[in-house]
């Protein structure tokens, strides 16, 4: 377990699940952003890949990332997740490790994916949600998205054929201000359980949402170094990040509201 936070350069280890199979839609941008935002604060982010067949040891990681992929790759990943990594992943989630699943990764963290035809794909059920593909006659959910996330906003791009529905007690990540979200019906987007975040937003997600990136980093630092880990979270100049964020909000007809909040990060 971690050493005293006073003696060494702080370090976080991110486990990147199935980077060879799930590497669509600029997922690399999320890793680049986490690594760079850590580096700017003197925190080293070690990037460790977790491939098919490899055992997941929760103690070896401080946060986990799982991205989206093509359909044929989703099958073998789902099997590996269930058969090789499920119990360890559950243990990590229950011990409040921050986990981010995007698009296909979000679907795999949930209960099941029911394709338009063919067998149901079983997820690992960490998130109380499920996804149904209603066939080619129903249009894909494609386009830019803006969400209300607490007092703030999130922006991204979504591209998914399946519609995701949340169980009665499940908590969405945000409320859709523009775009489709989980299913284009209930104005919900994503799903959150403890520190596990599932979402359809890419774009990449984290570069234009620095407050979400920092939230994940803060959770990981606190879990590893305790509450005083917040001292590592020195404020950064996020002018460029918010310019890109706000440009998208304005384009979607949403008034940027986070400006005041951004200063307090």
């Amino acid at each position, binding site marked *: 377990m971690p050493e005293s936070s006073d003696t060494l350069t702080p370090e976080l280890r991110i486990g990147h699940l199935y980077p060879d199979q799930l590497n669509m839609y*600029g997922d690399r*941008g*999320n890793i680049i952003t986490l690594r760079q935002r850590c580096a700017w604060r003197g925190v080293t982010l070690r990037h460790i890949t977790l491939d098919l067949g490899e055992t997941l040891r929760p103690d070896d990681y401080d946060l986990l990332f799982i991205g989206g992929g093509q*359909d044929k*790759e989703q099958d073998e990943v789902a099997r590996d997740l269930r058969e090789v990594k499920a119990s360890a992943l559950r243990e990590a989630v229950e011990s409040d490790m921050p986990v981010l699943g995007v698009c296909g990764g979000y679907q795999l963290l949930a209960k099941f994916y029911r394709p338009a035809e063919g067998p149901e794909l079983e997820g690992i059920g960490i998130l109380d949600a499920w996804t149904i593909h209603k066939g080619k006659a129903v249009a894909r959910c494609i386009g830019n998205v803006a969400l209300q996330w607490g007092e703030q906003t999130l922006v991204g*791009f979504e*591209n998914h054929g399946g519609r995701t529905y949340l169980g009665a007690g499940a908590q969405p990540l945000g409320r859709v201000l523009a775009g489709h979200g989980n299913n284009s019906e209930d104005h919900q987007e994503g799903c959150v359980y403890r520190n596990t975040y599932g979402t359809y937003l890419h*774009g990449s997600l984290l*570069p234009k949402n620095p407050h979400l990136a920092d939230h994940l980093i803060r959770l990981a630092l606190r879990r590893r170094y305790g509450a005083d880990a917040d001292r590592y979270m020195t404020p950064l100049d996020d002018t460029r990040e918010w310019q*890109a964020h706000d440009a998208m909000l304005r384009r979607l007809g949403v008034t940027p509201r986070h400006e005041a909040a951004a200063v307090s990060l």
Partner: protein
Amino acid sequence: MSSENLPPPPSMAAAARTARRAGAPPRTALAIVLGRASGGLARRLGISGGTSLPGLVAQYADPQLIRRLAAQAQHGCVVVTGTNGKTTTSGLVAYTLRAAGLRIWRNREGSNLARGIATTLLRRAGASGRLADGGDGAFVLEVDEAAFARIATDLQPRVVLVTNLFRDQLDRYGEVDTVAERWRASLRTLPATTILALNADDPAVAALGDGYAGTTLYYGVEQTPTHADSDSVAQVIDTRTCPRCRTPLTFAPRFYSHIGHWACPGCGYSRPTPQVRAQVISAGLDASRFLLETPQGAAEVSVGLPGLYNVYNALAAATAGVAMAAPLDAIVTGLARFTPAFGRAEEIVADGRKIRILLAKNPTGLNEVLRALSSDHAAGKKRLLMLLNDRAADGEDVSWIWDADFEQLAGATSYLGAGGMRAYDLALRLKYIGDEPQDVEPEIGVALARALEKTPSGETLYIIPTYTAMLAVRSELERRGYAPRYWEQEDA
């Protein structure tokens, strides 16, 4: 060619009379007349370059138009498809076949959907419904990878040339596997006389020859002095599993992305031995040289295009030449004579400054352009303006900029500008390689003006735009009198 040189459209009654005399279906003649009239009208109204509307109208009048006109070309059709390099490669093919003495008709405006193909065909036809010059020529047509499946059957091509298959605009085309599967299905509808010219170094493309009944010519790079790096967080590799058994492939060597000498450790399937090969001597920013080896013999080739990706384009064109029985010396001459197509590595002179436009529309294309730019140390640091749009033709999802290796650009520029509809996304991407752009300006005209202000006479400004950003920057340059209107350029 310019629309002003076209004969005025005859009356419809006259067209029908001519058509009856020539024995062509009146419907085809009517389609041609209507198509041309709509093109003329569009131009007079200044609606567009008129490269799509005539075909759209004409196809509505005669859904068999493409089939009827394409069948008349005595030397057949060469169809060029793939993700990257279609326009450049079809240009290279045209130069090669012209050097071999053939008359070539092509859709050079980059208008590569069914309607653009129909426009190209009907412009070469008279009101009789017959091709000009008795059909004594060949069509060289670049076809959009998604449109290919629908129109390949109508074109009944003599040669199908496939460049590569990369991730490109997933929101429009669907996933890479889906595209490969559609291609495979449409290749099954072609006559066995169609020759496939396939990139042996791209597993998904090479696998298209798997079980094909007709002749397949493979092309590939044997060796090159420059290689891909492999230390990226997650390499952008779209096809990394075996097309037959889905075991992860091994590459020795890998040239870039998933292009290289691949083999499957699972089932033993591997890169087919190419009949047309390149031994690369140099692949710089201004030109590339390689030894071309064909069944007819070997010769050194020089092409005025940057980077290894253009060696592949030239090699692909040489293979189409081989498939069309062009002599080796004509192939070499044609490749050497080539001048870049509209917006692809073309050079424009602007008040003593040089402007080079290097189109990049997906991460692999951008990686190769950035590599050519950053590995060219001869002229020191570069002035670079990057332009990112997110219209449908660019891909509305700009996530791909995070997959591209901008990192290789770090420290390689003396001026860096970000422009286009997603200028702020681009600026943010550049921030994360540690290079803050000096100018960030969504308006392309303004972004161009600022970049030109910072480029002294005698210096070169490199512009890397996405597709519609390229159109916008071209029109800005035209407005300033630096470049001709593209449809008025000579059909080289």
